[in-house]
């Protein structure tokens, strides 16, 4: 009985969804210059929510994915790249620029000082536009000890060392490992203590046993031999 109920429910929902869905998307090219506030006049009656509402900056990543995306009817690739790769041809007066690159609104006022707070919120947010080498290239240009890292403030003549005894660095590292990578791209400081060659602390995640082969298959011995002797991993 339960199976019949589930099957009927599934068929009903599918039929309903297909009926809702079966209709050709219209071209929006001729409406490219229409004010966003005017979009509602058509979209509400057709059951399609306006997608350029106030939350657009955060919400567009779902919309811009290929499925059903019609962004290109109104926007050139340059529109995406002006924010995602620092272009600048579609900038308006409110758009800021950092040197030659144009930056989105999230890079507000003194972003050089603010970005550590922003970067620690959602660890993925920076990587949407910047490769890891972008961070490390910038950080490497500053003298050692000149960047204020919470767990580094305790030790060293220029605060360039972390304080392992306080366990602060472990919490920080697990929470936002990208911040470690920004200054130590090769992880050389990490393997000083985490190397199996020296009997160091195991840094692997809990499910390591089931996924370790994946890494070995993909990156070969490049990564494993940093901490393990050949043939021991």
């Amino acid at each position: 009985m339960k199976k019949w109920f589930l099957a009927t429910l599934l068929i009903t929902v599918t039929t309903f969804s297909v009926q809702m869905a079966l209709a050709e998307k219209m071209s929006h090219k001729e409406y490219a210059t229409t004010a966003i506030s005017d979009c509602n006049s058509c979209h509400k009656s057709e059951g399609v929510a306006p997608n350029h509402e106030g939350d657009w900056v955060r919400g567009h990543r779902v919309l811009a994915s290929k499925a059903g995306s019609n962004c290109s009817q109104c926007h050139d690739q340059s529109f995406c790249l002006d924010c995602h790769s620092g272009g600048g041809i579609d900038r308006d007066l409110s758009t800021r620029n950092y040197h030659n690159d144009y930056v989105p609104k999230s890079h507000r006022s003194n972003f050089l000082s603010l970005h550590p707070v922003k970067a620690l919120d959602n660890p993925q947010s920076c990587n949407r536009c910047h490769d890891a080498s972008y961070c490390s290239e910038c950080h490497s240009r500053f003298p050692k000890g000149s960047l204020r890292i919470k767990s580094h403030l305790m030790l060293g003549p220029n605060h360039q060392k972390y304080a392992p005894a306080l366990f602060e660095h472990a919490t920080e590292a697990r929470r936002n490992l990208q911040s470690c990578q920004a200054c130590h791209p090769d992880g050389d400081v990490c393997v000083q203590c985490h190397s199996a060659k020296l009997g160091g602390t195991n840094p692997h995640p809990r499910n390591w046993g089931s996924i370790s082969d994946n890494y070995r298959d993909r990156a070969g011995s490049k990564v494993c031999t940093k901490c393990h002797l050949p043939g021991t991993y």
Partner: protein
Amino acid sequence: MGMKGLTGVLLLGTLLVAPAAWSAEIHGRSSTQLLWFNNDYNSRRETDLAEYLRLSVTNLDKAGKASIYGYGRMTQDLNNGNGFNSRLYYLYGEYRDLFDKVDFRLGRQFVNEEAGTAIVDGAQVTLKNVGPVAFSAFGGRNVIFDLDNEGGHGGNLALGVSAYLQGFKATDFEFSWFRKWDDWDIAQDMLGATFKQYLFNNIKIYGNGRYDLTAETFNELLGGIKYFPLANLIFTGEYYQSYPTFDSTSIYSVFAVDRYREAAFRVDYTINEMITLNGGYTAQFFQEGGKGHIYHLGCILRPIDPLQLNVEYDNNQGYNGSTNGIIVDAYYDLTKALQVSGGIAYDVYQRDSLLQDEIARTYWLGGKYKLNKSMTASLRVENTVTDQFSSNVQGRFVFDYDF
């Protein structure tokens, strides 16, 4: 020839190709800019002369299916010794609707699918109009932009395939796979899916996810619902989580990391032509018990026709620090051709409890004048005052020519 030189030659190449295509239509924008700013690395003033060029050459064939698109920039530092620099964002040839079913793109291009996004020097092929599902595949050299130059090398490659629903008005779905190589080793192997569904004329549900095949975990997961009972009122609820994963060629890929989660609620309300409001709250959950709170309020006011006023306030009481700031922008159309504008950003932030509050203020003024149908000149000057700088002025003068 270095990558800088190659980019320059490619940019010039677009200009040379264009006149040869006698039947073609050539359109684009030339944006000549003078930028001045403080270079943070040597604390010296820098003035750059830049040329941004966007170009489209369409109707290369009789049927109008073949086109070339390009976009790039060249900069010359005039006083700080950084010299010439260039960046090519895209330059690709496109042939659309072969047998009404196939699109080709060849050259440097921005590719975007749920499993991964890249700029590639390569090709993209799309098979469409063959039923309810369309297919797309791309592959090529993965272009990586560093601070000033391109940072990639020969073994950086990217490949992606996707299948997605086509021809449905209220339903979108895509399933995709993305692989990235770093120095010929596999660096990323991701699966991605995204969907969107409209229901009952007033609900939209949507979601996307990325699954890292190497780490065997969801790298990102997002689910959301929008409820719009009125045409001018939208409620949004979202759940998002991420688990940072690294290129498998990096030592960091084998380290344990924490999962991040957030739940967001948001309202957008257009009261009338003069007032639009939005506000929201995001709860952040960090592993090991850390929590954060983000509050956001914003409004757009148009009290009189030529004036628009934008105000945004947000307050982030984070686990690791806090930010509290307001942005105000105003735009006024003095005449049909001349717009003046200005704004303030005021931020108070604390990096962590060991440090004091810091304050940053940015003031900017701008103006834009449309000389004629195809020429616009604009000027923006801003000054940022921080704990480090009592004054940090930067600006730009831009002359745009649309052709």
